[in-house]
């Protein structure tokens, strides 16, 4: 039926498809400034999707996700700049190194729950940052710039280079979204969604909680690592406090996901959009923009735990991106009334 809610939902879906098409063509459509901004948007989106999967579904409330971004950045620099590996391949390898770091971290951190787990992830991230500061080939505590030869590898002309880096970020964000979509539609994803709503209840219907947690923790690491590599291409530098920035790669991401809607597919996307829109207006405020975002996210949580999307979804009654499985039309028709 063409109820107003359905019209809005279908309009939203059409807008979404249009947005994806426009995003795929960004370098041909927009100025260099906007391409740079949208590259940053795509990287932030990847981080938001991953944090949401961990904290929103698998109940792994990590405040150490910047560890994998930093590890990815340092691994990328190592492969590409120090060991002469092909720069594209180095991005992939950055993901693999992040995965390799996630395995022992998981063995350590999964012994802890809730607040202790959060502290554990943070401590691991800080240790990794301190260790990165000891790597003299990476410039030690003050870091170093990405060599010109590697920058030029992604395009001799500036706009070609910006376009290439943009498409890398876009590709990563698109695959993060598709992987999450298919994961959530799968058997394991249905279990994850059940865990999100009631963990004990999920265990009681046979959802293997431990396996789901391991899968999410290890599955997000390569995405975070590759995001770290791409972020390095944007910043053209590695340095411990910047590459392992808790503010940029964890705290800000938490705010965005909470504002957009934790535990939903749409939440991190909406949160990241809201952040970039707000930032255009709050840019002059410097460090204040973090304080304002934090305050907004607390306000949102108090009004609706599931963020802006939770609020809108209640009115619309369905998801924008159809993750949920529906019964056949027959069932509800036969038994109404």
């Amino acid at each position, binding site marked *: 039926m063409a109820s107003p809610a359905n019209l809005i939902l279908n309009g939203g879906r059409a807008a979404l498809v249009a947005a994806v098409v426009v995003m795929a063509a960004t370098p041909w459509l927009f100025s260099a400034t906007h391409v740079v901004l949208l590259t940053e948007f795509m990287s932030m989106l990847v981080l938001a999707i991953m944090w949401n999967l961990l904290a929103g579904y698998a109940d792994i409330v990590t405040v150490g996700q910047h560890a994998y971004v930093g590890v990815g950045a340092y691994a990328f620099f190592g492969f590409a700049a120090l060991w002469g590996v092909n720069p594209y391949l180095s991005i992939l390898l950055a993901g693999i190194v992040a995965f390799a770091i996630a395995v022992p971290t998981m063995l350590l951190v999964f012994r802890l729950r809730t607040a202790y787990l959060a502290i554990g992830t943070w401590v691991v991230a800080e240790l990794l940052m301190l260790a990165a500061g000891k790597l003299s080939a990476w410039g030690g505590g003050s870091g170093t710039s990405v060599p010109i030869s590697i920058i030029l590898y992604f395009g001799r002309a500036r706009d070609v280079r910006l376009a290439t880096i943009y498409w890398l970020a876009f590709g990563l964000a698109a695959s993060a979204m598709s992987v999450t979509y298919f994961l959530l539609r799968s*058997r394991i994803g*249905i*279990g994850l*969604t*059940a865990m*999100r*709503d*009631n963990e*004990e*209840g*999920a*265990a*009681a*219907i*046979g*959802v*293997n*909680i*431990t396996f789901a947690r391991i899968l999410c923790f290890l599955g997000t690491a390569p995405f975070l690592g590759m995001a770290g590599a791409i972020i390095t291409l944007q910043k053209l530098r590695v340095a411990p406090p910047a590459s392992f920035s808790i503010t940029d790669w964890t705290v800000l991401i938490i705010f965005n996901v909470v504002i957009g809607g934790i*535990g939903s597919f749409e939440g991190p996307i909406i949160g990241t959009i809201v952040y970039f829109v707000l930032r255009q207006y709050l840019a002059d405020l410097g460090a204040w923009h973090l304080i304002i975002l934090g305050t907004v996210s607390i306000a949102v949580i108090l009004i609706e735990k*599931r963020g802006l999307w939770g609020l809108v979804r209640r009115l619309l009654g369905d998801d924008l991106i159809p993750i*949920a*499985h*529906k*019964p*056949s039309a027959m*069932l*509800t028709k*036969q*038994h*109404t*009334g």
Partner: protein
Amino acid sequence: MLELASLSRAFGGLVVINRVDFKVDAGEIVGILGPNGAGKTTLFNLIGGVLPPSSGRILFEGKDITAMRPWHRCRLGIGRTYQIPKPFTHMSVFENVLAAAMHGGNMTLTSAKAEAERVLARVGLAHRARLPAGRLGLLDMKQLELAKAVALRPRLLLLDEIAGGLTEAECDVLLGTIRELHGSGITIVWIEHVIQALRRVVTRLAVLSGGSFIAAGRPDQVLADRRVKEAYIGT
């Protein structure tokens, strides 16, 4: 089928289950009665693996499952409902049951969908299939608990107070469903305060009081037992 051997559980100093020895044979419908706080739900939590016992062992079909995680027990064939329902509030009623059929029931998406529709029709929730489970009333939520447990295709089904608050007609329907499930080969253990409902279907009645079974046997015999009457009058 199920064997509890000298099973105990204490919370701090409070012993809630006290050296319980109990057996359930395949094909039985065992009713469990007992005053509030007797430890009935705790017993299910131990069997389901939500709580570890302080001591003792649990065997299912001859296999020691004492240290097994809840989801493994579920996949072995132990399904349960919760006295306080645990719905997946933001998923639809349909998806709640689908999740159970796919995980505990180990079905593919296609057969799990068919199973979920069948089970929802059976417990009378088909017309609510698209509703978020969190919006159900308490009685419907209890039916959803039953639907989820049935979709697991369990061999042993543990029911914790699912008849409270039903009208007589609704209760008859529920008893019909339970007989049907039993007829399809499921062994049932049912905790219930509604004695009249229990005695109509159970093959055996057991009374838990103060963490131990004080009587077990044919329903009329058990209900006539002096100690059982005392336990109930005492509350």
